[in-house]
């Protein structure tokens, strides 16, 4: 019984432990002598593996019945006077992303161990330090419930990738690293300004007056004691932001989207991604594609949608247009790529367009599909990058013109490539399908978007099938062609070894499982999505009812409803 109580008391420590463990492991790693590669490898692998176990424990302790609630909370004071706190916890949405991150990391490490000396020289421990650092930052970003804490972790993911690309990348690494950092940093600085603006707006809220007039329910006031004070707690800011007018919300949405759209990346600001991906080492590419891009869409979902509902409703069609352009345009770019990594990188942009389109359809189906799509894209694109990386270590080229008919020489590799390519295209029965289907269906049903968007995005699926099948056909089938240029190192022609199969097989199993039985994810995520879309749904509802409220005497309509009605009247484009 005591033991039970003891376990209970440990619960709030679970998430901080999960966040700090990889970081601590990374710092210990730096203390090891640089030539002991074996120790470094084992140390890294076990660190990520134990982090995975911690995440699984957290998932076990997590009460999935109440999956919409934030559980396993922790709360640390940082700078009291600024209202800065390190506050976090997980709901089902965060939990799934944490599981994705921690699941992929050991596999990424496993891949990185082959040819370690060739790839990293004598700086292996630095390499793994930055990877572990990135893992910590990503987990923390998914768990944060305080906006500044989230911002801190979000910025922190930049630093490891900057060094991973810049130090361990290929020829054009310096430029890629600088472009990546500058793009993301510019976006996130604007985001910081937006966050500060919302926090300031919260301090100006006349709370007592609102409670007195009944605009703010008394129990909401009790639940959010710091309303009207300087705080960055997201629940408070979300509530406060509801009192902004349309213009203010539009600026906040613009600022937040500046940060998130660069990270996702959305159509006009996507140009850093192919560069960063082609130059990054495989482990960096996988991290970037599978998890870090999701931080952008996760941020949109978690923070942008509920904070600025009026602006979201106003501008959802514009954003959706950008998404559709992104889907089709980058899909067509994929088709003409010659570099394998670039092809997959552009396909990421195209796929992330689906994700954002789903988010801005603002209904349960589309957003559920979009979240599912994020998870499955993380798995399949990550795995494709791993496959390309494995081939690159053997043949030292990524040019499609140098490669052909690899299926004959590398059958196991070819199996995995085809499998993940089909996942990525969205073959029914594999993990790409449910997400894509639900996103399109939700978009079709969305009052703001409707069938033209669904149709255009549907065309994107066809484009995706074109370029993926073109790539598979070109590289795997046809007459065998292997480069003979050994200037970059000896050409190896053996198929995947046991370690590499161990890297890819778990991902394939999960892909298949998610494709055949997506319900656990969809059902648990749905509850977490509800509170996120309620503000925007309320705005849409108010717009529909705008006329009756105007004509009524307004005595029973609440303060917010009237604001919304007034906004709807004035803010309609």
């Amino acid at each position, binding site marked *: 019984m005591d033991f039970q109580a003891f376990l209970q008391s440990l619960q709030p420590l679970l998430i901080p432990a999960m966040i700090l463990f990889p970081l601590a492991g990374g710092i210990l790693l730096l203390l090891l002598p640089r030539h002991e590669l074996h120790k470094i490898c084992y140390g890294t692998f076990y660190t990520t593996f134990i982090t995975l176990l911690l995440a699984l424990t957290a998932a076990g302790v997590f009460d999935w019945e109440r999956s919409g609630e934030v559980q396993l909370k922790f709360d640390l004071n940082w700078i009291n006077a600024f209202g800065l706190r390190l506050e976090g916890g997980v709901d089902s949405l965060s939990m799934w992303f944490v599981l994705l991150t921690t699941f992929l990391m050991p596999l990424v490490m496993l891949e990185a161990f082959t040819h370690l000396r060739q790839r990293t020289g004598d700086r292996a421990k630095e390499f793994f330090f930055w990877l572990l650092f990135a893992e910590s930052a990503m987990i923390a970003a998914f768990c944060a419930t305080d906006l500044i804490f989230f911002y801190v972790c979000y910025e922190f993911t930049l630093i490891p990738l900057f060094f991973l690309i810049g*130090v361990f990348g290929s020829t054009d690494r310096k430029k890629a690293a600088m472009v990546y950092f500058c793009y993301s940093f510019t976006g996130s600085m604007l985001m*910081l300004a937006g966050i500060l603006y919302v926090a300031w707006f919260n301090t*100006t809220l006349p709370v007592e007056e609102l409670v007195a007039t009944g605009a703010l329910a008394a129990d909401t006031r009790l639940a959010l004691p710091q309303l009207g004070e300087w705080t960055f707690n997201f629940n408070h800011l979300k509530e406060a932001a509801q009192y902004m007018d349309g213009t203010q919300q539009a600026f906040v949405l613009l600022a937040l989207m500046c940060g998130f759209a660069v990270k996702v990346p959305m159509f006009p600001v996507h140009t850093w991604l192919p560069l960063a991906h082609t130059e990054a080492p495989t482990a960096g590419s996988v991290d970037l594609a599978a998890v870090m891009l999701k931080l952008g869409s996760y941020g949109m979902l978690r923070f942008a949608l509920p904070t600025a509902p009026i602006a979201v409703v106003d501008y959802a069609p514009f954003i959706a247009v950008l998404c559709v352009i992104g889907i089709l345009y980058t899909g067509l770019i994929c088709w003409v790529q010659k570099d394998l990594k670039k092809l997959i990188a552009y396909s990421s942009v195209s796929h992330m367009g689906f994700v954002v389109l789903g988010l801005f359809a603002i209904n349960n189906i589309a957003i559920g599909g979009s979240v599912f799509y994020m998870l499955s894209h993380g798995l399949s694109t990550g795995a494709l990058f791993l496959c390309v990386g494995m081939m690159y270590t053997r043949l030292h080229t990524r040019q499609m013109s140098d490669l052909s008919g690899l299926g004959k020489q590398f059958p196991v590799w070819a199996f995995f490539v085809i499998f993940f390519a089909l996942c990525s295209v969205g073959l029914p029965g594999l993990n790409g399908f449910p997400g894509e289907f639900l996103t399109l269906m939700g978009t079709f049903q969305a009052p703001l978007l409707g069938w033209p968007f669904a149709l255009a995005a549907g065309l994107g699926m066809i484009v995706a099938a074109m370029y993926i099948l073109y790539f598979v056909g070109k590289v795997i089938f046809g007459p065998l062609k292997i480069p003979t240029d050994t200037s970059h190192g000896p050409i190896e022609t053996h198929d995947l070894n046991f370690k590499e199969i161990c890297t890819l097989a778990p991902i394939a199993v999960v892909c298949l499982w998610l494709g055949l039985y997506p319900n656990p994810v969809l059902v648990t995520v749905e509850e977490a999505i509800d509170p996120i879309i309620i503000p925007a749904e309320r705005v849409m509802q108010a717009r529909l009812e705008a006329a009756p409220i105007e004509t009524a005497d307004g005595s029973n309509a609440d303060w917010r409803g009237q604001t919304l009605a007034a906004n709807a009247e004035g803010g309609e484009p």
Partner: protein
Amino acid sequence: MNGMVEKLSTLGPEMCLLIGGCICLVTGLDRLGAVRRATVWVAALSLVCAGFLTVDFEAHDHGVFRVGGMAPYIKLIVCGVGLILLMIAAGVPMQLRQTVQAENAKDFEPGDILRGEFFAFFLFSLTGVMLCASADDLVWLFLALELTSLPTYVMVATAREKTMAQESAVKYFFLGAMSAAVFLYGFALIYGATGFTSFDMIRQTAAMQIETHGAITPMLLIGMVLAVIGVCFKIAAVPMHFYAADVYEGASTPVTAFLAFTPKVAGFVALILLLGLVAWFPVDGEFVQLPPVLVALLWIIAVLTMSVGNVLGLLQKSVKRTLAYSSIAHSGYILMGVLVGPGLVGTHGAVGDGIAAVLFYLPAYGLATIASFAVIGCMRRNGEEADSFDDLSGLARRHPWLAWIMMLSVFSLLGIPPFVGFLGKVYLFGSAIQAQYIWLVVIAVVNSAVSAGYYLHILAACFFGDPDKDVQRYPAPGRRLGAGIAAFGCIALGFLGGWIVNATHDANIPGVDKSAAPITLDDSDDQVSATKP
């Protein structure tokens, strides 16, 4: 006479540093090598003593220890950062120093060699900063500002062999003299407009003018404008920034680190005190804001300073020049806080007090800048001071610790959380947003993003480049230690900055009555209620 004695009794720390400087002059000239070598320790001891005296005076005044004013806060910062600067200046091992000292005195190069006068000037300049902080009279403020600057002219010029140092010293001296003339002219006009040199009396006169005419007289206003522009030289703000890049590049690196911090602190303190003469006090129960002319002037200077600093920073080939422009840009950010002023402090927490944000940002900026200059000071290309990006190339391979120190300081300057620079930026930007300078914040944010370009260039050189055999580490353990402490400070204060935040929040500016500041934000309340039916 009594007033004089009373005033002197509050100047314990300043007198301590002054005496320390005089002793340095004597010991530096001593015939015995052992005594000469003790000079550094004398300087260090006097800084420590001054720090203790500051704490002691405060404890005496308030019963318990608490940093309860701008003056003691600045004094403590000066003592603390001064110690780090001393480590960086003096971090040359004994043997190297002795041999050169014995050979001839002509080749003096403050980056390599130690001489007594150097430390005397060092301490005199710091004394000037402290005196600035406790100034309560125009004449006093002028003398204190000059005491801060004059020794720095000599410190730049002491590297006798380098023509570049001579050139920059001459530039620095003449432009400094010109700026002194400008703000002295401003002080004279202020005196002419009010008839007093004492801050209290000027403030009372200004209050009377506002009460009767609704605004201060044009002559007082012109005096203020001139004084502000003159002081811009000290903080290297546009339009008085031209000297900065040349002087920072020409001076020996430890001196550059000193220049990037000390005159700047004095300048900002002087600026706060001067602006406090015409605003930020109650008249008829109403809180007086800055006159619109000064608001416009400061707004334009802030925007120009940060933009010019960051854009020109992108174009530099020399790391020292880049960091010089970075320091100009940071002056622009800090000016935002000065512009916001101490007003509008509500019950919402610390954010909103611009002056407190300035006081917080000064050490945050100082530590990071000093650490980055110190790292450059640790490198030599064939005996010459390292300066270009190529000289830093591959630093991470050969001297990982130096590279990591550089990384920490650069990230702090860039404002990446959780380093102290990030907190400083949140503090400054938050205050500016609270004062409704939204566009200023947007410009500052874009500027921060631009600055990423050159800061990353430094990091890219350190981490991505290949090592160059011609570049060696200079055997200066103290300098490395100083850099390490400064960089560690950037992290530690990032997590434990709460203490400083409280200290800056408590820091009452003499004569400025914060309790009169409006508690609620009337404007913004209107804004919220405007959306109501």
